[in-house]
């Protein structure tokens, strides 16, 4: 059984934010507009964060694209009172919107702050409505949402593999952010399959994970030559 994970090479990331845009359109993420922005309630499943160290002009900066870490020991699932979020058998931390009661415990439990609450009725400008992805539901107001590792793509990829009576291949299932990255900094695949690139890269000497000390065991690895 697969254990889906991601490797993000910070030495290759140039902060272009193509991943953010690809994620938004793939996953029908609401356009919050000025109101949500002023309330700090913009939803962004993938966020390129800029880290700056030191004082100008002696600064060191880098970009850190941050999706849901899909922890092997997720703190968010433990606090959900209705099991609307749980870790799937293949390691994807899911969020079942129909089940979510909007208590926001999980958003508070997440040390990576990558779970978002729909404070407003999702707003998609009329001109973008025909472009909504039919494979992803539009979330209602009052539920939590988050990066799904594009699990809707897995649904279709599985079916395609069955139709062609072959096992799922590495190229069959990848995320929108990995697809869109122009420098190939984002790689997605099965961490437990030695033939997948992520399996090798996650064992790279440059590899580390965010806030490893918490014991959440994220399945998103970062590569960086710097500490």
């Amino acid at each position, binding site marked *: 059984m697969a254990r889906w994970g991601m490797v993000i090479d910070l030495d290759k990331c140039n902060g272009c934010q193509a991943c953010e845009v690809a994620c938004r359109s793939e996953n029908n993420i609401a356009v919050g507009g000025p109101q949500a922005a002023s309330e700090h309630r913009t939803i962004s499943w993938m966020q390129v964060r800029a880290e700056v160290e030191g004082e100008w002009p002696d600064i060191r900066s880098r970009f850190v694209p941050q999706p849901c870490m899909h922890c092997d020991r997720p703190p968010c699932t433990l606090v959900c009172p209705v099991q609307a979020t*749980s870790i*799937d*058998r293949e390691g*994807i931390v*899911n969020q*079942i*919107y*129909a089940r979510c009661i909007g208590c926001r415990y999980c958003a508070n439990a997440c040390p990576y702050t990558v779970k978002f609450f729909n404070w407003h009725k999702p707003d998609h400008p009329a001109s973008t409505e025909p472009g909504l992805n*039919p*494979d*992803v*539901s*539009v979330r209602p107001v009052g539920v939590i949402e988050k990066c*799904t590792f594009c*699990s*809707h793509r*897995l*649904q279709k990829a599985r*079916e395609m593999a*069955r*139709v062609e009576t072959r096992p799922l291949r590495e190229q069959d299932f990848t995320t929108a952010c990995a697809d869109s990255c122009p420098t190939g900094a984002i790689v997605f695949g099965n961490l437990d399959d030695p033939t997948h690139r992520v399996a090798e890269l996650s064992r790279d000497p440059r590899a580390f994970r965010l806030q490893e000390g918490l014991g959440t065991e994220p399945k998103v690895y970062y590569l960086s030559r710097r500490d």
Partner: protein
Amino acid sequence: MNVDEKLGPTRRLALGALTVLMAVAGFAAGRVTFNPNGAVVQPIQFNHRKHVKDAGLDCSTCHQYYADHQHSGLPDLALCTGCHQQPMTKSPEEAKLIKLATTAAPPAFRKLFRLPDHAYYSHRRHVTLAGLPCTTCHGAIAETTAPPPGPLVQVVMKTCLDCHARRNVPTNCIACHR
């Protein structure tokens, strides 16, 4: 003159209650007249039995996509007039069909079975790969002589899960939810 002075509290309450009652009655009457039980109204009184049982047509003649797509699809009137260009019967519905099909924007058949957008279901998976007959989920639609006003079988999550459990098919949430 003040209205409050004219009407005592009991009469005001009665008047208020009457207004609400009439509003509710009016709304209900409107619903029943124009759309009883929220029924789906189709542009043509289509007869499945005549086409499937009597004319021996395959389901895929009109529902063209179930074998290799997620959705089955409903026919548009242009598909009907492939056979019904000239009247074959004396049926007034057929005459209506031929007339409607030539209008600038012909009306479309409306969907009865509908899952919420957060559930993924694929016909190819169930019809082609699992070999399930249409009747499992759609009941005796092939026997209908007029469009049913709603789904003949209620397909809910339990329907899906019960069969999956029986047949040892995945029941993890994100197999279906999205």
